[in-house]
């Protein structure tokens, strides 16, 4: 943990420098090619929007990391868990419950779901290769998609829990027109930060958290000192389910709760490889880098090639990092040479 903290510190110190270099580079590009547009205020605006967007990616990526860390399973169903959680919560709200109560009930449903998954799917498949478990989560993905829609219907649903959505303009006297910040994204980022902090405390200081880290380190050793592996798995899936619920609320109140929410899992994958599959800070930092990187690329480089490049740009960015750090930025270092 200490090494991670040091690395984190170094990165944080480097960040402003990197941003300045990036900005200068883009400014240079804009001078060479006059069709491009660049001002520092606009650059910062895009960057901030990207970072806030990145926190939302991190929220989804976090669910993946939790499960991968504890059980080595790449949980493809995380996206449909997000959808299912959001659908369930909206379903409860539509029954006339207050959203806090609906949240608690939906969280309960996710816990039940986690226990069922552990019992029905994971337990019979202990000791199978990772790719088989990965396939099994794809099975869960399909099942949840169908189940959620059978239960709650395929209509688009509105989820509004009163998060402000007005644009804010900050520093109007430094930059012309100020820097536009979306208050919704800001709130979402704050919620994400709080969630990460809570998870960090949970894993660092509680008994369950310690057991979980033990399981993540070595299944067999953990079992032999009496840690109940299956309970831990159920807990991890529950926590991942609740993280999915929070992500679902954030994305759902952005775009409406509908089938497409399951697709945001794809946005979390580059975040994962960039940050490393096993690191919670990795998911956060990865999300920030991917979010900022793809927005900046789309806005400042997109016009060169006709736009809509942010999808593959995120993956290319992650790939570029991977070539230098094959385990991701914060992934576990496995020493091997091939």
């Amino acid at each position, binding site marked *: 943990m200490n090494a991670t903290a040091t690395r984190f510190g170094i990165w944080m110190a480097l960040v402003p420098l990197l941003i300045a270099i990036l900005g200068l580079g883009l400014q240079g590009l804009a001078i060479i090619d006059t069709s491009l547009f660049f001002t520092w205020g606009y650059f910062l605006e895009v960057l901030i929007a990207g970072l806030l967007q990145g926190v939302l990616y991190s929220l989804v990526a976090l669910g993946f990391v939790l499960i991968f860390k504890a059980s080595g399973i790449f949980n493809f169903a995380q996206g449909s868990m997000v959808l299912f959680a959001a659908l369930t919560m909206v379903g409860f709200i539509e029954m006339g419950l207050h959203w806090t109560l609906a949240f608690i009930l939906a969280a309960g449903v996710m816990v039940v779901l986690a226990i069922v998954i552990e019992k029905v799917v994971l337990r019979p498949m202990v000791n199978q290769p990772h790719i088989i478990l990965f*396939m*099994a989560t*794809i099975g869960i993905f399909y099942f949840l*998609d*169908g189940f959620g829609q059978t239960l709650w219907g395929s209509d688009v649903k509105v989820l509004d829990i009163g998060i402000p959505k007005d644009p804010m303009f900050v520093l109007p006297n430094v930059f012309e027109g100020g820097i536009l910040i979306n208050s919704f994204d800001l709130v979402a980022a704050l919620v994400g930060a709080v969630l990460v902090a809570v998870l960090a405390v949970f894993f660092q200081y509680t008994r369950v958290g310690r057991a979980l880290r033990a399981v993540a380190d070595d299944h067999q050793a953990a079992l032999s000192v009496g840690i109940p592996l299956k309970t831990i798995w159920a807990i991890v899936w529950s926590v991942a389910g609740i993280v999915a619920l929070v992500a679902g609320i954030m994305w759902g109140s952005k775009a409406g709760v509908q089938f497409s929410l399951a697709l945001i899992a794809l946005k979390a994958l580059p975040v994962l490889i960039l940050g490393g599959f096993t690191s919670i800070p990795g998911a956060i930092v990865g999300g920030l880098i991917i979010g900022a990187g793809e927005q900046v690329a789309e806005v400042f480089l997109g016009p060169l090639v006709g736009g809509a490049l942010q999808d593959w740009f995120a993956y*290319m960015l992650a790939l570029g990092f*991977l070539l230098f750090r*094959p*385990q991701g930025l914060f992934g576990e270092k496995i020493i091997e040479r*091939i």
Partner: protein
Amino acid sequence: MFYREAGQFKTSYSADQAIFPIRQDRLGLLLLGLVAVFAVPALANNYFLETIFVPFLVFAMAALGLNLLTGYCGQLSLGTGGFMACGAFFSFKLATAFPELHIVVVFLLAGLGTAGVGVLFGLPSLRIKGFYLAVATLAAQFFLVWMFNKFNWWTNYSPSGVISAPPREIIPGFFVTGNEASPAAKYVFLLIFVAVLALIAKNLVRSRTGRSWMAIRDMDIAAEIIGIRPLWAKLSAFAVSSFYIGISGALWAFVYTGSVEALAFQIDRSFQVLFMVIIGGLGSILGSFLGAAFIVLLPILLNNAPAALGIPLKVELISHLEFMIFGALIIFFLIVEPHGLARLWQIGKEKLRLWPFPY
């Protein structure tokens, strides 16, 4: 009882190394081939040919390609859709730029082009492994689809970005693409084409190259120590796999749908082919076919079952149920037999060999 190789003696090395050393297998395959070539087009109606057999063969081809990479060489790839798009657009450009070129040559050239692209995107595999590599191949997936979608050159500047397969004959008067192509002609052409390529693949995995792939899959460090070059083995696996996948993409665009846009090769396609490989059986040529059959047939079967059984259900409920049953069946299969349908088939053969005795 029926399936016993007692009395079949091998008197030469070549007989011992034959692909199908058992006579029953040879006969069965011959029979299957005859049924597939003559009986199926004669008996099946156009619905079966167009919506079941043709996509089955195209998907089997793609699954075969992915199985070479993932099943035999152990490199997990999620870029299948992108490589299929390569094959489709390469062959479209070739077919429209050189109308006199024979369609099979077009397909093979498109496959070769895709192999080149595959090698390019296979380069990261030299440094990264496992799920990291899988996600890295997604970069290929998204980039390639974006490229074909974005640059009009690939679609001959069609205003909508959709390519339509020009009509081509395999032998004069016998169209396999375009309006005039009959489903039976398409089917027979595909059947022969896929069968030949599958046979080549089967031989390839029994060769030195195939063995080096499997060595890399089982343990890369050990493989390197016994003198297998990981660079060569991995990149050749990417090349051959992309060659097959590229051809399947070309067949998809030309023979199956007839017109296609880049978005038809989205990420879902990659997952679909991966399911086939895993359900069918990793590291098995037969498994690719079984997996493709399973994934192509199951949704259609589930979708038609309520109507066929006379149970009146709403279409949306059928569709939701289809999702649920599909997911549940995947999980069920993985619990019962994680090594796929090909393994089940093998177990079945073992049982048949002993039948009616228990052991």
